[in-house]
């Protein structure tokens, strides 16, 4: 994160093929804004996505991009991050991607805390497969793309992320670009794993949670100057966690956006690994020489696995 660039265009020149009015446009703007503000070297940021409308995002950014498999963006991102902990890794995933088929990985990442930043695009539907209910759609809700009211209940992404152990948890809104870019920047600067639920209108399929619907409801947590969700000392943990969690359950006429919880006392996985794996940060797996100048192994199998030798 030390390298930095001036005046770089973080948007690629690929035509965006999202529907007109899609909230994803705002997300792209917020991401490029954050990268611009941070003067991020494009080689140092990797965008990892799954499959869905959301999954197309990396192609629209002029940074390294991996558009992977439905539900598996987190494992890919963690692979990149742990093999090269010096990279900034952003996950861009749909609510179906991360909370349905990928929910197991989302939960597991809380325990790992690898230091990735997860952007969860919440449009309450499966966009790319034509509008089926996503796990963020409440029971009995009826949007235009489903033939009858939703028979499954919703999961609360902020509450789930907190319960799973993410050490930075926030919610943004795709039309509040300035706040969202601030949230992304904060998340990227946070050492452990961060997640930002992003409320995102899908005008094509979701005619309930529309742009206006959100506009009327969202309010910013940071507008309350007494709101301080940051834990820098274990003693504050329980209280701030409970506050953030209980707040996350609020949904209805007023929807809070902003940071719900940030805990700086939980070591990240790279920090944990550094204690075991020699020179992990200096020479991570991505950056090692594995052969000598003649091309032969540099590992001493006997010394490494010493107890196995006879004589």
């Amino acid at each position, binding site marked *: 994160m030390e390298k930095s660039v001036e005046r770089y265009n973080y948007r690629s020149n690929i035509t965006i093929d999202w529907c007109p009015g899609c909230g994803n446009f705002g997300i792209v703007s917020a991401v490029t804004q954050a990268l611009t503000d941070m003067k991020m070297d494009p080689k140092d940021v990797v965008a990892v996505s799954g499959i869905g409308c959301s999954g197309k995002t990396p192609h629209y950014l002029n940074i390294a991009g991996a558009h992977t498999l439905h539900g598996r963006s987190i494992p890919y991102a963690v692979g990149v991050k742990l093999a090269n902990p010096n990279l900034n890794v952003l996950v861009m995933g749909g609510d179906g991607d991360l909370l349905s088929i990928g929910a197991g990985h989302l939960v597991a990442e809380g325990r790992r805390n690898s230091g990735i930043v997860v952007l969860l695009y919440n449009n309450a539907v499966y966009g790319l497969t034509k509008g089926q209910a996503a796990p963020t759609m409440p029971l009995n809700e009826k949007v235009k793309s489903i033939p009858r009211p939703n028979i499954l209940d919703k999961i609360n992404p902020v509450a789930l992320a907190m319960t799973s152990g993410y050490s930075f948890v926030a919610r943004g809104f795709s039309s509040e670009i300035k706040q969202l870019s601030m949230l992304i920047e904060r998340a990227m600067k946070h050492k452990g794993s961060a997640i930002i639920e992003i409320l995102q209108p899908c005008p094509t399929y979701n005619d309930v949670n529309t742009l206006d619907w959100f506009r009327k409801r969202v309010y910013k947590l940071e507008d309350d100057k007494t709101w301080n969700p940051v834990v820098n000392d274990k003693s504050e943990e329980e209280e701030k966690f409970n506050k953030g969690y209980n707040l996350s359950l609020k949904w209805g006429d007023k929807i809070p956006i902003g940071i719900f919880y940030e805990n700086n006392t939980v070591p990240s996985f790279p920090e944990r690994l550094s204690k075991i*794996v020699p020179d992990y940060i200096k020479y991570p797996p991505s950056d090692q020489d594995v052969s000598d100048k003649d091309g032969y192994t540099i590992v001493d199998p006997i010394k490494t696995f*010493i107890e196995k030798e006879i004589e």
Partner: protein
Amino acid sequence: MQETDINLLVGGPQGGGIDSAANMVSMAFSLAGYNIYGIREYHSNIKGRHSYIHFRIMHKRPRSLKYPVDIMVALDPDTLFEHMFDVSSNAKIIYDTSFDKFELKNARMITSDTMESIRNELKSRNLTLDVHGILDYFRSVGAVPIAMPFDKLINDYVPEGPATRYYNTLGAGTTLAILGLDIEHANEGIKYAFRKKPSVVDSNLRVIKAAYDYVDKSEIKPEQLKFYPVIPRILLTGNDAVAIGKLMGGLRFQTYYPITPASDESTLLENHEDIKFLENETKNLKKGGLVVVQCEDELSAVNMANGGALTGARSATATSGPGFSLMAEGISFAGMTEIPLVVTLYQRGGPSTGLPTRNGQSDLLFALNTGHGEFPKMVISSGDMEECVYDAMKSLNYAQKYQMPVIHMIDKTLANTMDLVPEIDVKRVRIEKYRDNNNHENYKRYDLNTDDGVSPYGVFGKDVFWMTGDEHNELGHVTEDTSLRDKMMEKRMRKLITADREIPMEDRAILYGNENADITYITWGSQKSLLLDAIDELKKDGISANLLYLRMFAPFPSEYVGEVLKKSNLIIDVESNMTAQAAKIIRMNTGIEVKSSILKYNGRHMTIDEVIKSTKRIMGKELEMVVLENGS
């Protein structure tokens, strides 16, 4: 004097220290200048069920196991029943005096099905359904039961107890004493076996003394064992060998989810993240440790390894059947996006959960065809310890050179074989790296301007590029253009043609033995060394046989295999599965139908006696297909 050739079986309850006994026996014999070869059999159970190690000890390196055994050590009564047919006339059977009163019906841990067949067997011979009955049976075939007062002996030498904890050492120690091994060797064996639990070494040494003293005072006449000079070797299992090979081959990122019989490899690696380097000339190199990640499941393991590979780190994962089934989608992704991924596939008895701790070679066709859609992948297989080491290195090389998933197959028998391997050659396999990208300005991840199909490999952290499992253009962006699609498909598949051209035949298929033999065996995996032994044996009977040994199934060496088989007389396919999968692959690629086969799918390791016997039945035209049944 005939060469020493001892077949030994140590059986007892799972969790009862069979492993330590095996390690100790192996080390002791190796210090006497012998070679050993052993295979472990155990239930999918933590404590209590029957488990055993089948060993063979020779001066020259043994490559197979044989029934009946010459010595059997029974650490519990179950062992006596379970192995009633496995001992030779003359065999010595060491067991605890207290078993004498034991009735078959109280052997709770013998599964009802096995119980029933033992019961029927004893009944049909008019023997009592207890240890007396089974001992009578042994005596009737000429074997020599040797009863020892386990508890009393141990209590005398290790009064602090509990005695049961030392049954294994007592049994193993007695065996060594009877076989004429020096007590010093036995003691060294103990130190090795308990190297990670130094606190118990002393008491175990005392038990060794108990065993030697007992034999000394008894009427048993120890064998006269010749001692040989010791040459340096390493005691390896297949799991160990692959781990070592991977690390030597440059592996720096391994992911896994626990599963038998694969996770021993990952656990070993996890305990050696602190790599020790060779000293010469590596001073200025960038050297670091190995990262091993225990994942939440195999979906995560395969895809996380793919992710790691995107940074340039040599990445791999290891699993067995059920986990491999979950990896199909990730492997298809690696094929599509040209990721160098190595998956070590430890085969166990299938299908489904199957026989989780038993042998099988039934995942071959699945591995070959795994993942939806058409993409290049390599499938290679190892058959002995050395191949495990060097093939693991080569797998990583192939993955890097051809930018595709490589599936490296091992079977459970091999994974759990204990073998003494002469020193590892660090210069045997050169490490080959991916084709580097040196056009950082206008980098095209999937550059089509390539004859061999291989584009330069850029990595995250050094290059900005894109990649996707959708069909893509040279930059890695999604495309649905028809002609680009065709070009990309052809580019990817061309890499397989390149590999087919470049990889030497000895890494793919080998004909062992005389070209013009009466019999041509075909096999792959752990039967390799067994068949090499079998060929030697058959020669003694005047039968000439050779072996077409298969090491690479994709790209398949069709031409070579076709040529060899066209010249063959009686072809016998030997596999540990039911549907003769390698033979099917041969027919698919060459049109040649292999009609005779020796197959085994009961989950146990093949032994040389059953293979030779079956060969003769096939030669006598008694049967075309023989199903092997040895093992408990």
